[in-house]
């Protein structure tokens, strides 16, 4: 990956786009920072202007009172501008909060919107990493505005103000001196001398900045990679869960070794980069000094030939310094703009990712009589050669309780993911009440399934919010589901009951819950959602025998008349189901009720005996 060379026109277009995005978030912020730029570029010139008047006043021996008037103007204007700037700075800090957070929330929103299949893809993960780096790297959008755009704007204004002040330098003066030098200096064309200086300075800066840019981008890519690994090491050290294993298996040396290796690999290129940077800066300063040398000579000679006053000298020298600084700054900030736009491109690319999932227009469905049909479903994960599911044909009647069993990796969870539309089948279709799943609206699809996956996730927020999946849950309903899963007593004894925060991650002192309790909580969440199709993937894996038995006994109460699909390695759970299907290597190899399958000498009876025999030996 290298820096894309973006032309000036394109850069301007991109910048305008970014500004539009920012003003979409906070118009006030844009106004504030533009206003700040105008004022901060004006500020030093006020001082220069009045200082020149003061100095000339002294030289021309004006009375003190007259000179003091200039002083009063100077300090009054400075005071006014200063206070306005203080207020703007306050507003800037307040409005910029929105700016940063808004970007994060846009990335999150986009991630939510994308198809699960796309999100899981490694390429998307990389793009996401770059998008995040794009909007946080180098100080993020705040730096984009305040450092880059503001710098460019300030510089442009500074050049304008400076130009105005410097006009006097090129006016022809009345003089009696007819020497050659005087005539040259007096002519307006002598401005060329100064311009030569400016051009030298400009060219040098441009060269330096171009070189720096290329290096910066290299470093940025390297940085993203390094940051991720750094965050990983941090996480391992911070998380006490890994601490057990590291101690018990004496992994300290290996782990620390890896860390040290990693750090060494990172430091060497960075150090090189810093040395490179200093060399470039030395060249850049040289360009600056060349200009200021020429300026001092030019201005100084004009003064010595009486063409300008002492006050003028101080003012012109200071103005030229400011203008040259502004020219340099435009160069430097423009190249940073170029870099930033490259970074932000990743962010916009991510935001432009499109979902491929299609929804239809059917918005009603008979939830009481829901039948599911898998018609010749085949599925292959993206980037995989083998098919995970092959020619699956299955009918699930309304209200049926179905168990899916099979060996690890057979395709059980994959089947479920297809049903929930987390993935789309490669071939075949899934029908609900004889209408293709794709034909239903998003609303209908979203409300069809209550799922507890084997690797379910709960979040470090309150129990109530977790169970109700949002901020406006119904407390009574939450308590009811907790009672059904046998978690109510435990929750009732917690410091804030259902408002207790779980896990230690948030700022509040969260309560740690065990794996089994978490599983019950996940089941509560599924029950709260109250969808017509309930899917449980290994729901009792972490539960002790009593809790497991409770779930089984109340199973009928839990799922009631809903259609339920159960994946489990606990063959005993099959007893509660009307029908069992056995998946092996992506195909349905056996199907039927337990009593029948257990007598056939197939995979099901093999698995059943493998578990049962340990219970039945007397």
């Amino acid at each position, binding site marked *: 990956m290298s820096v894309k060379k973006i032309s000036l026109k394109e850069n301007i277009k991109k910048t305008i786009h970014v500004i539009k995005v920012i003003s979409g978030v906070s118009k006030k912020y844009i106004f504030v920072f533009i206003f700040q730029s105008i004022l901060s570029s004006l500020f030093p010139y006020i001082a220069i202007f009045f200082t020149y008047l003061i100095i000339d006043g002294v030289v021309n021996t004006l009375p003190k009172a007259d000179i003091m008037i200039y002083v009063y103007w100077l300090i009054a204007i400075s005071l006014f501008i200063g206070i306005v700037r203080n207020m703007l700075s306050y507003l800037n800090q307040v409005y910029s909060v929105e700016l940063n957070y808004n970007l994060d*929330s846009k990335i999150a929103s986009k991630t939510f919107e994308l198809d699960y299949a796309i999100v899981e893809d490694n390429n998307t993960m990389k793009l996401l990493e770059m998008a995040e780096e794009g909007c946080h790297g180098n100080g993020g959008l705040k730096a984009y505005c305040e450092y880059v755009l503001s710098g460019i704007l300030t510089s442009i204004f500074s050049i304008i103000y400076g130009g105005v002040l410097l006009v006097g330098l090129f006016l022809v003066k009345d003089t009696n001196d007819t020497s050659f030098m005087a005539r040259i200096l007096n002519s307006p064309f002598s401005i060329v001398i100064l311009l030569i200086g400016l051009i030298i300075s400009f060219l040098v800066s441009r060269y330096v900045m171009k070189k720096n840019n290329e290096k910066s981008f290299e470093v940025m890519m390297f940085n993203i990679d390094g940051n991720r690994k750094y965050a990983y090491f941090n996480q391992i050290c911070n998380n006490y869960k890994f601490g057990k294993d590291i101690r018990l298996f004496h992994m300290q040396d290996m782990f620390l070794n890896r860390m040290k290796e990693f750090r060494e690999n990172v430091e060497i290129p960075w150090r090189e980069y810093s040395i490179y940077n200093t060399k470039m800066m030395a060249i850049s300063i040289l360009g600056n000094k060349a200009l200021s040398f020429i300026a001092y000579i030019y201005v100084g000679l004009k003064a010595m030939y009486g063409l300008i006053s002492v006050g003028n000298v101080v003012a012109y*020298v200071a103005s030229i310094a400011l203008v040259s600084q502004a020219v340099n700054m435009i160069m430097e900030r423009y190249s940073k703009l170029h870099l930033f736009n490259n970074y932000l491109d990743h962010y916009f690319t991510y935001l432009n990712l499109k979902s491929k999932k299609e929804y239809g227009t059917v918005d009603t469905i008979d939830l009481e009589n829901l039948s599911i049909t898998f018609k010749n479903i085949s599925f292959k994960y993206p980037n995989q050669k083998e098919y995970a599911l092959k020619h699956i044909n299955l009918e699930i009647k309304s209200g049926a309780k179905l168990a899916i069993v099979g060996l690890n990796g057979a395709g059980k969870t994959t089947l479920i993911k297809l049903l929930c539309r987390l993935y789309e089948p490669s071939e075949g279709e899934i029908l609900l009440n004889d209408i293709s799943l794709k034909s239903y609206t998003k609303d209908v699809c979203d409300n069809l399934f209550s799922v507890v996956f084997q690797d379910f996730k709960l979040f470090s927020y309150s129990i109530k919010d977790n169970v109700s999946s949002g901020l406006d849950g119904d407390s009574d309903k939450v308590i009811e589901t907790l009672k059904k899963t046998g978690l109510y007593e435990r929750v009732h004894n917690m410091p804030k009951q259902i408002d207790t925060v779980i896990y230690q991650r948030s700022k509040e002192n969260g309560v740690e819950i065990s794996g089994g309790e978490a599983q019950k909580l996940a089941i509560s969440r599924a029950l709260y959602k109250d969808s017509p199709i309930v899917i449980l993937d290994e729901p009792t894996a972490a539960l002790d025998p009593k809790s497991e038995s409770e779930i089984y006994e109340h199973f009928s109460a839990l799922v009631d008349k809903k259609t339920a699909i159960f994946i489990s390695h606990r063959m005993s759970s099959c007893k509660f189901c009307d029908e069992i299907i056995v998946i092996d290597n992506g195909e349905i190899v056996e199907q039927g009720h337990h009593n029948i399958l257990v007598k056939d000498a197939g995979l099901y009876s093999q698995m059943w005996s493998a578990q049962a025999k340990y219970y*039945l030996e007397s």
Partner: protein
Amino acid sequence: MKHSLISNINYVYKESIKKYPRVKWFLLINFFTEILVPLSAIFTTTLLVYSFTHDVDIPIYIVLILGLSVLTYVLESLRFWSYLRYSFENTFTRNSTFLIRLAEHQVTTDYINIEASDRRKVITKAFEAIETTYRGIEMLLKQTPLVCINLVGLLIFSVLLAIYVPFILLILVVMTLINYFLTKRANNYLANMKSRLNDEFYEMYYLSKDSTNPNYGKDIRLYGLQKWFDELFVKLTKNRRNVVKKIEKRFMSANVSNTIFLFVRDLIGYSVLLGLVINQKIDLTTFIFLTGIIAGFSMWLNGFTSSFNYLRSSNVCVNDYRKCISVDSEYNKEGTSTKYLTYPLTVEFKNVTFSYPESAQPTIENLSFTIQSGEKIALVGDNGAGKTTIIKLLCGLYKPEAGTIHINGVDINKFNIQDYMSLLSVVFQDSEPLSLTIENIISCCKPEDVDYDKMWKSITEAGLKDKVMSLELKEKTFITQMFDESGVRLSGGEIQKLMLARSLYKNAKLLILDEPTAALDPIAEEQLYIKYKQLVKDCTSIFISHRLSSTKFCDRILFLDKGKITEQGTHQELMRSNKQYYEIFNLQAKYYKEGDECEKN
């Protein structure tokens, strides 16, 4: 224990210089150039004015300007070079030396020091000290030279002012003190709010991370969590904005007072100087020189106060860091060697009591039991009964509050902790492998120390051989793509097998398995049980599982209820005694039995 500022400065610089000795030179050069550059700027303007008011010859003027330009060029280049070099070294010191030191602490200190919730807060603070450039260790490294430079600059300029216009100096000092007190209020407020600001930041950070984590994607979509998270984003943004508003208001009033301070300074300064120059007490050159000095004085002053404030806050951070890593630990404590222990081992708990720091009641109380040499024990009981706690105590991860634990009759406290842990092989339920290579994960040692025969034997016995052979880089394949594009993701079952292979490689004489078959299908589970008997032939072992069928392999079963052993004996004995074990076994078995009975019918 709080360390003084000087002690902390010493602490961080010692490491920085040790790591990269040239840092000394960078700092020294930077010190001189930072002071000389502003001085040379003032000097240049003054020289300019002097040249005109004293009619210096043109050639001399040109030479002087040339000389000055070269001089300022050299100074400015050196300034930038030294500043950039030492800044980068500061980052490296933070990111390497101090991170690794903290990591070392995290992986070697007693386990309880990283798990207890009060310690976790301390650890989080220590991480804050090394996480960014703008806080803690790197900030201390950066601000120390700045404070010195600003202080010296301030002194030099004060001396110059004192020579010419002591009255102005006096005014400046008075105004400074007033300003200091006004900004102190803002800074104290910020210090107090810092932890709130951090909290807000972390909340948002975690929310972002959760939202974009593909592992969470299924639940987010299936439970419509998008809306919840969107609302949280809005809420958190609002919270942060409110906190920021409060802080910034204080700063604004401090800044405004600073602006007014400048107003008064200029008013008095110009009045006094104009008076002097008009009355010919000083000449024009001196006038210009002094206006430059007064402006410069303010620059040094502002620099000094802001650096000093940063210094103070970063000092607090560094103290947090030092506090964290200075906790006592047994890692390197001398102890009896484990070399002379005979195998298989015996284990004995004598009146052991243990409670978690946050809990009022002990998890296990006055617990005693013995495991004979070579015995295979099953530990069963409800969640929260204390099974995992017993294991952690046996592993030496926790220390009993009361009572002792013995191996072959020797109190385990007497052993060096590392030696002791090498006696045990544990497979925990929630074990997750590090994202390194398969050979790293199984051998747990550096690649040069790996015994490849032993490793392949473990892989085969754990049932992973086919999988590993199917990978392109075989045992050198990374798990997950964290460190290498070619990394793979393993399924839950494969991970459990990997963890088992690791235990087998270690070949310890005390084998502990906690729910090793939770993610395995019935066939793989059966194969594991068959293997298990073989695997533990020469070991003493403890087996925890909710699948009571698995306890049949064990010689003896210990039933744990609320931290006490209520039943113990062989499976047959416990079934005959008709108590809790019998009840629970039947709870599970009945589903398997009914089928059988139906069959018979």
